[in-house]
C-alpha cells in the first residue's frame, strides 16, 4: 500500500507547483494587502506543505493509520497556537484591575 511508486510526471509537476508558489509568495508580499498579507503567505505555505506531505512524503498513498498520526500532529499544533493566541489577543478586552 505504502510502496506506491510515484510517477516521474507527478514528482516534477509537484516540484513545478512548489516553485510557482514560492514565486507567488515572494511576489504577493510586495503588495500591501493589510492583514491579508499574513493570510496569503500562510495559505500559500499551507498549500506547499500539503503538496510535500501528499506526494513527496507519500501520504496520499499511505496507510490510513499514517493519516491519523499526521492529522493528530496538525490538530495538536493548532491547539497549541489557537489557545495561546486566544489568551494574548483577548487580553485587555475587559478592563479588570490586576489582570
Amino acid at each position, binding site marked *: 500500500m505504502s510502496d506506491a511508486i510515484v510517477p516521474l510526471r507527478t514528482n516534477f509537476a509537484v516540484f513545478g507547483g*512548489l516553485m510557482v508558489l*514560492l514565486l507567488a509568495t515572494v511576489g504577493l508580499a510586495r503588495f500591501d494587502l493589510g492583514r491579508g498579507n499574513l493570510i496569503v503567505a500562510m495559505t500559500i505555505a499551507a498549500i506547499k506543505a500539503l503538496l*510535500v506531505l501528499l506526494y513527496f512524503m507519500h501520504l496520499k498513498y499511505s496507510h490510513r493509520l499514517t493519516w491519523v498520526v499526521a492529522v493528530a500532529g496538525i490538530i495538536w499544533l493548532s491547539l497549541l497556537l489557537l489557545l495561546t*493566541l486566544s489568551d494574548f489577543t483577548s487580553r485587555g478586552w475587559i478592563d479588570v484591575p490586576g489582570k
Partner: protein
Amino acid sequence: MATTEAALILAPQFDDAEQQHDSDSLGMWVFLVTEVMFFGGLFAAYAVYRYLDFPAFVAASRRLSVTLGAINTAVLLTSSLTMALAVRAVQLGRRRELVYLLLATISLGAVFLGIKAYEYYDDYLHHLIPGSRFAFDGPFPARVEMFFVLYFFMTGLHAFHLIVGIIMVGIITFLAWRRRSVVQGTTQVELVGLYWHFIDLVWIFLYPMLYLVDIHR
C-alpha cells in the same frame, strides 16, 4: 533493490514484510509529529511576539535578505525533489541512480547551509546577533533583538536538523554504494526521505514568517 531483497530480515513480531514496512513507516511518522510539537513551541513563541511587537518585527524582517531566503527555499525544495526521486529509484531497484540522487540531495543540503552560514556572517557584521554586541539603529531595538533571538533559534534548530539529515543521508548513501545488505529493501531510504521532507516543511513556513513580514512597506 533486487540484490538486497533476499537479505531482508523479518523481525519476529511481524507477520510479513509489508506489515513490518508499514510499522516502520508509522513509527517514523510518530517521531515526526513529536518534531512538529518540538518546533511548535517556537512557532507559538513567534506568534505571541509577532502579535505583541508587530512594528518591531516589520523593522527587523527588513534586515534579512529576501533574495537569499528565496534562493535557499528553492535549493531546499529541489533537494526534496531529488530525495523523492531517490525513493523512486530504490523502489525500482536502480542502485546507481539512487546513489547519485542521494549525493545530489546531500550537495543541495550543503549549499543551503553554506548560504545560511553566509547570512549569519552578514548578521554578525551588522551586530544583529543577540547579546552584548547587539546594535540596531532603528526603533524598538530591544524588541527587534527579540525577533533575532527567535530568528536564530528557529533557523539554528532547522539548520541543526539539516546537518543531522545530511549525516543520515550520507550513511545511507555509503551503505547503498557499498551494496551493504543493511539497506534492506526500500524502508531505510523511505524513512530518511520522510525526515528530509520534514526539514523542508519547516522551512516552507519559516521563510514567509521570518523574511516576508510586511516587506511592501
